[in-house]
C-alpha cells in the first residue's frame, strides 16, 4: 500500500523550505547584480584612467580634441584627434540621414499600407540585415560600393561616402524595427478620428501618425547613430584610413573606431601612442553615454 504524503503545518515556525528558497533567490540576484555593477564600473574606470593618462602627461585636452595632425611617431609625438572625431560624427550622421527616410517609409508600408505582406515578407528580410556580420558588410562595401564610387566620382572610392553608405545599410534594421513598433503601437482611435473628419490616408500619415510617433522615431534614429558611431570593422574596410580631415565626400579619412582597431596592435602598453588610443576610446565611451541619455530623454517624451 502506498503511504499517504502529509504536509506539515507548523503553527508558529516559518517554514524552513520557504526560508531557504527565499534566501537562495535573493542571494543569487544580488550576486548577479553586484557582478554586473562591478563590471560596468571597472570598465568605465579602466577606460577613463588609461584615457586620462595622456592628459596628465602633458597633452592639452583642447589641443587633443581640436588638433588636426595625428603623428604618433614624430619626436615629440603630436596627437590631434579632430579628423577622427569629425570622421565618426560625419559618417554616423550621414548614415542616419540616408537610412532614416528609408526606414520610416518601410515602417509606414508595413503598418499602414500593406500590413499583411509587409509583416510577412519585408520585416523578416530587414531583420535579416541586422544579423549579417559587419565584416560581410565591409567586404560588400569594398567590392561594390567602393568601385562604383571610384568610377562615378573623383577620388579612389575609399572614403567618407563609402563609409556612410555601408553604415546606413547596417543601421537600417534598427531604425525600421523601432519605427514599425512605434507606428503599430499608435492607438487606432487616433487614425479613425482623422479618417472620420474626411482626411485621406496620406493626410492622416503626415498630420497624425508621424507627429504623434516622432519622439519614438527619433529614438530609433539616435540608436542607429549610436550603433554607427561604435561600428569599427566595416567602416575601417572602406573609409581609406588617412589621418586627415577629408576635403570632399569622396576623400579618404578615419574614424575614432577605425584608428583604434588599426593601431592598437602596433603600440606598447603605456607608451604615449597607446595612451592616446585610450583617450580616443574614452571619447567614444562618453559619446555613447550622451546617446543613451538622448534616447532616455526621448522615451520620456513618448509617453501619452
Amino acid at each position: 500500500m502506498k503511504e499517504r504524503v502529509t504536509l506539515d503545518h507548523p503553527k508558529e515556525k516559518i517554514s524552513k523550505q520557504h526560508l531557504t528558497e527565499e534566501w537562495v533567490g535573493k542571494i543569487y540576484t544580488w550576486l548577479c547584480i553586484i557582478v554586473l555593477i562591478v563590471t560596468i564600473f571597472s570598465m568605465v574606470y579602466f577606460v577613463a584612467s588609461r584615457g586620462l593618462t595622456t592628459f596628465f602627461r602633458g597633452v592639452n585636452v583642447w589641443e587633443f580634441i581640436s588638433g588636426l595632425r595625428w603623428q604618433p611617431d614624430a619626436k615629440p609625438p603630436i596627437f590631434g584627434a579632430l579628423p577622427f572625431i569629425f570622421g565618426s560624427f560625419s559618417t554616423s550622421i550621414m548614415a542616419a540621414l540616408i537610412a532614416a527616410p528609408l526606414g520610416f517609409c518601410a515602417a509606414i508600408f508595413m503598418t499602414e499600407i500593406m500590413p499583411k505582406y509587409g509583416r510577412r515578407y519585408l520585416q523578416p528580410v530587414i531583420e535579416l540585415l541586422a544579423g549579417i556580420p559587419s565584416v560581410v558588410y565591409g567586404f560588400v562595401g569594398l567590392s561594390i560600393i567602393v568601385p562604383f564610387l571610384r568610377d562615378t566620382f573623383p577620388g579612389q572610392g575609399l572614403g567618407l561616402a563609402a563609409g556612410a553608405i555601408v553604415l546606413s545599410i547596417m543601421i537600417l534594421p534598427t531604425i525600421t524595427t523601432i519605427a514599425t513598433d512605434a507606428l503599430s503601437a499608435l492607438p487606432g482611435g487616433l487614425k479613425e478620428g482623422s479618417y472620420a473628419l474626411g482626411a485621406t490616408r496620406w493626410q492622416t500619415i503626415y498630420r497624425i501618425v508621424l507627429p504623434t510617433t516622432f519622439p519614438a522615431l527619433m529614438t530609433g534614429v539616435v540608436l542607429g547613430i549610436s550603433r554607427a558611431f561604435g561600428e569599427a570593422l566595416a567602416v575601417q574596410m572602406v573609409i581609406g584610413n588617412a589621418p586627415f580631415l577629408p576635403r570632399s565626400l569622396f576623400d579618404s579619412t578615419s574614424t575614432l573606431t577605425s584608428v583604434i582597431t588599426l593601431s592598437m596592435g602596433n603600440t606598447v602598453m603605456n607608451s604615449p601612442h597607446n595612451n592616446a588610443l585610450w583617450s580616443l576610446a574614452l571619447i567614444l565611451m562618453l559619446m555613447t553615454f550622451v546617446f543613451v541619455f538622448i534616447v532616455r530623454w526621448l522615451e520620456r517624451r513618448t509617453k501619452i
Partner: protein
Amino acid sequence: MQTKYEINDLKLYYGDFMALKGLNFSIPEKSITALIGPSGCGKSTFLRTLNRMNDMIAGTRVEGEILLSGDNIYAPSTDVEQLRKRVGMVFQQPNPFPKSIYENVAFGPRLHQKLDRKQLNEVVERSLRGASLWDEVKDDLNKNAMGLSGGQQQRLCIARALAVDPDVLLMDESTSALDPISTLKIEELAQELKEKYTIVMVTHNMHQAARVSDQTVFFLNGEVIEADQTGQLFSNPSDKRTEEYITGRFG
C-alpha cells in the same frame, strides 16, 4: 419631416459572414435616431456604413444602397472624404489628438481648405460653442487636449466634428465611457444639436434611447426588427421580440 437617409436592402458581409441582412428603413433629418439592440446585433456596423468607415476593414462588402439626401453613398463616383466631411462621427472612447485644444478643432477645416488665422479662430470658437465647451476652455486653447476630463474630451471630439460643417452626426455609444454628469451634458447637447444636425446614435442604454431620441430602431441578428417613433416603440411595440428586449427579458 424630410428624409435624410434612405436605406434600401442594405447587406454587409465580413468575408462570408453576413452581418447586415437586407435593411430597409429611413432616417428623418434634424432629429435624433437611436439604434438599440444586444451586442453583436449589427447596430455599430450599420452606423459605420453611414460614413463608410467600414471601408477600412479588409474583406467587407456592401450590397444595396444608402441614399443620403437622394445620392447613393455606395455609388462608385462617391468621394469618400467629402462624404465623411458631411457625416461627422464621435466614437465610444474619446479620441482627441495629442495636440492643443485649438489644433484639435482646427484639424478638420485645415484638411479641406486654406483658411487664414482669423477665419480659423472663428471656426474654432463657433465649434467649441456649438459643443458647449467654449466657456470651459476659452482661456486654455493652447493646452494639450489630453489634459481635459473624459467628458470634456468627448465634447471636444464633438466640436472637432462640427468644425467641418457636417449635416449628420453619428455617435457610436459616445457616452458609455463617461460618468453620469458628463453623459447628461452630452445628452443635453444632442438635444440642442438636433436643431441643425441629423443625429444617429448607437446606445446600449435603453433609458438613454427613451430619454433622448425621436425615433428608435431595434436591431437583432443583423436585421431591423422594428423602427418607429420612440414613444410608440417603447410603450406599444408591434413586435414581440422588441417587447422582450425593452422589458429586459434578453440582451
